[in-house]
């Protein structure tokens, strides 16, 4: 669990804003050729969940109804924590294109530096809108920040 809540890092007298966990959020940054995604969340698990939602937002630009499929277990194994984020997104991209299924709701059951197990529910689509070709390792970073985690990942579109 990559959470800040249990790690005091501030000298006495400083305001410890880490006690307030970051609410999961994401935004897209300018990039000439591709799409840069900035994600913030209170923990690594929440970061992965938010990354999944950001991807779903790209793949399903129009409003969609509630998830219509059962929870599906997804396991991903990677070399390190940064690559785990990229591999997680690439796993979702692959499933969207193969299964015409876009995951929109996530629950990370377990996440270590090299392994995650997630549950996901999604919506079926007639044509998988795989706008995103892949998540890349370029300028990838997953950092601890006050209140949680922040990640930057470039998506090839």
């Amino acid at each position, binding site marked *: 669990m990559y959470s800040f809540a249990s790690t005091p890092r501030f000298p006495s007298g400083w305001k410890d804003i880490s006690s307030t966990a970051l609410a999961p959020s994401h935004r897209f940054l*300018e990039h*000439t050729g591709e799409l840069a995604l900035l994600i913030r969340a209170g923990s690594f698990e929440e970061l992965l969940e938010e990354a999944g939602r950001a991807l779903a937002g790209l793949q399903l*630009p129009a409003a969609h109804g509630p998830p219509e499929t059962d929870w599906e277990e997804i396991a991903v194994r990677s070399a390190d924590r940064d690559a785990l984020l990229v591999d997680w997104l690439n796993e979702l991209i692959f499933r969207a*294109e*193969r299964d015409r299924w876009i995951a929109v709701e996530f629950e990370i059951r377990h996440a270590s530096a090299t392994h995650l197990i997630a549950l996901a529910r999604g919506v079926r689509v007639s044509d998988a809108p795989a706008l995103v070709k892949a998540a*890349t*390792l*370029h*300028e990838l970073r997953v950092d601890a920040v006050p209140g949680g985690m922040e990640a930057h990942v470039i998506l*090839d579109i």
Partner: protein
Amino acid sequence: MSSSISEIGVGHYRSIRVDDLVREIPASARPDMRVPARIFADDELWQQIVGDRSLDQLVNVATLRGVTGCVYAMPDVHEGYGFPVGGVAAMRMEDGVISPGGVGYDINCGVRLLASNLDAEEVGPKLEAIVHDLSRTVPSGTGRGGRIRLTESELDRVLAEGSRYLLERGMALPEDLPVTEAQGALAAADPSQVSSRAKQRGHDQLGTIGSGNHFIEVQLVDRVFDTAAADAFGLHVGQLTVLIHTGSRGLGHQVCTDYVRRMDAAMLREHIQLPDRELACAPIASVEGRAYFAAMCAAANFAWANRQAITHLVREVFERALGPARRLRLVYDVAHNMAKVERYGDATLLVHRKGATRAFGPGHPETPEPYRAVGQPVFIPGSMGTVSYVLAGTDEALSRSCGSTCHGAGRAMSRGAAKRRQPGFQIRRELEDRGIVVRCPSNAELAEEAPYAYKDVERVVEVVARAGLARKVARLRPLGVVKG
């Protein structure tokens, strides 16, 4: 030789002006550079290039093991991931590396030009119906599957045989293959090196355009610059043409994803350290290097087969509209995302071209026989609604840019910025007001590909022509576009 300090997106490198159109970042500019970086641009394009991180990415490429000569940026270069889009790097076979990031996710993204045996004015009122039929017949949009479903064994044959397999399936003409780069099939392809995941993504995507800047455009030849070359390519003013731009679709994307991951893991063993992890690479002769090259060749064959399948569908549309006497002849098909083994004098090199087009001249043995007198055709699509160019490769380009030239206008603006500048419906209206028939799944996607989001293709082409990387042959004006 004058020199100037150039500010670059992140960091500062000293650049030397070699001549009016070539700047060089010397190998001494950063301690880890192994070779200089050369950039083809005039002053205006140079200002655009230094506005993003293209040159940082190019300098990173210059650090790769076994890189030789110079690394090059074409005038349409813009920042990508790993390599910049518009980057060229040649590696020595004996000690160099191969990098999937030097080819890109869309392996063998490329362009083919079809020339009709009728003039544009003969199509007249049928143009709108033809463009509409193209949009219905050739699936566009991102993950959309097509009408051609392949069994596992059929897909393996596409991966191994490329366009040749489509000839057997009746979706190619015998005369198509000699005017396709590598005759539409790289012999080094090995379908067994393509993962099951990649095959699952690609099994129903043959004959589909995809998304982003991929398109089918109906055009007319509005100007000829080089009559001899235009004659050799079978082009004349007023003639109707069709330009197809797409690649290897999800199959190629997955091949790249698989091998970036695999090479990322192998780099520790090979003691390779990189300034950018997306440059993940392996020695060309290593297990991973050879496996990627075989898989990349297979994905390239899929891309040629894809453009060939689309050609078949386009020919059906034209036949339905205009009758069987109307023919669409393939002028040429050329890749702009590829790594190829090529001979340069006594050296055999692996040349990575990402967003750059091979442009061999009249004297090169790989220039197709029908074009041996004038040079290999090169097609440079402009941005949506603007002109495209037909160029011819030059022998001079071999020494100046590893036989490479530009691949398009090159993005100058992010998709978000493009969408904020003008809504898609206005762009659609402007194109229609100019008489261009537009079929696009959404106005938002239209806005992302607006002409102002790209550099000026005329300026880009002027630079490569003046720099001797290619010769201008003809200009194509859009009449109708089906956007992916």
